[in-house]
């Protein structure tokens, strides 16, 4: 039962119409808004880097970068509108990357 959704999407005989589920293309306006958000975030991250916050500089820079990355992934790359299978796959990939880096720090974190 779990994968009904995945497979029912494939039932459409005419490939042109079973695509993209029930929504049409994202509007120019919406995409441009996302772009504007990315620009603002870029400005923020550059501005914050001029202020010395110590360790927080790294946290803010990476935090802002991750928000930007999420905007790109969810909207420009349409992940928000994909089914849960693709979403789960993307999550898996990032989890594996995090594990690789995280477990390496079990070594280097205690050695350097």
């Amino acid at each position, binding site marked *: 039962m779990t994968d009904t959704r995945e497979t029912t999407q494939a039932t459409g005989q005419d490939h042109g119409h079973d695509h993209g589920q029930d929504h049409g293309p994202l509007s120019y306006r919406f995409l441009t808004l996302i772009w504007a958000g990315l620009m603002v975030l870029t400005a923020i991250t550059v501005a914050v880097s001029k202020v010395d916050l110590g360790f927080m500089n790294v946290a803010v820079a990476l935090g802002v970068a991750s928000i930007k990355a999420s905007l790109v992934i969810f909207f*420009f790359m349409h992940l928000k509108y994909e089914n849960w299978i693709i979403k789960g796959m993307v999550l898996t990939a990032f989890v594996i990357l995090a594990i690789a*880096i995280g477990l390496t720090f079990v070594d280097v974190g205690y050695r350097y």
Partner: protein
Amino acid sequence: MAEVAAPLVHKDYHASKMGMWLFLFTEILLFGGLFLLYASYRAKFPQAFHEGGKTLDVFIGGLNTVVLITSSLTVALSITALRRGALVFCQCLLAFTVACAGTFMVNKFIEWSAKFHHGLIPGSEHMAQLPQGQSVFYGLYFAMTGLHGIHVIIGASVILWVMLLIKQGKVTGEDYVVLENAGLYWHIVDLVWIYLFPLFYLIS
């Protein structure tokens, strides 16, 4: 369990997209190996990375960020344009994207040339004699931005190819998964830069 799957001969859009996403994961993990090195060496040489970051030009880096994000927007817009049947607009947007890729590479060239001018050439005596950690910083800088640059060139070439397909009518408003996948690839190129920019230029 009434499940119905794709008929035997059928152009499966979801398969194409799934395949593309899986391929993008390999790109993320390819760069992931370098991010792992960056994180480790940064932990080892915080001061050297601090000094190294200061020598990079935030203006050029920031400009390239704006260029890439804008090119990401135009690719996203081009899909909407194609689906709405605005073929000429779509081609213009894609051409603009390729132009952004060119701009990015020109900026990169200027930046690298300046580094070479200061004797920061991989494998050179000067690099080897830098304080411990600094040469690692520049080594990573060249490796990561270099690999990213190669991806910019590949991505732009793919977009040029899709423009040709649109022109030939092989990619249309009804059959546009090739453009979508090319767009996905281009967004990944953007995504990597979104992290490279703060890691090299801002954290100093």
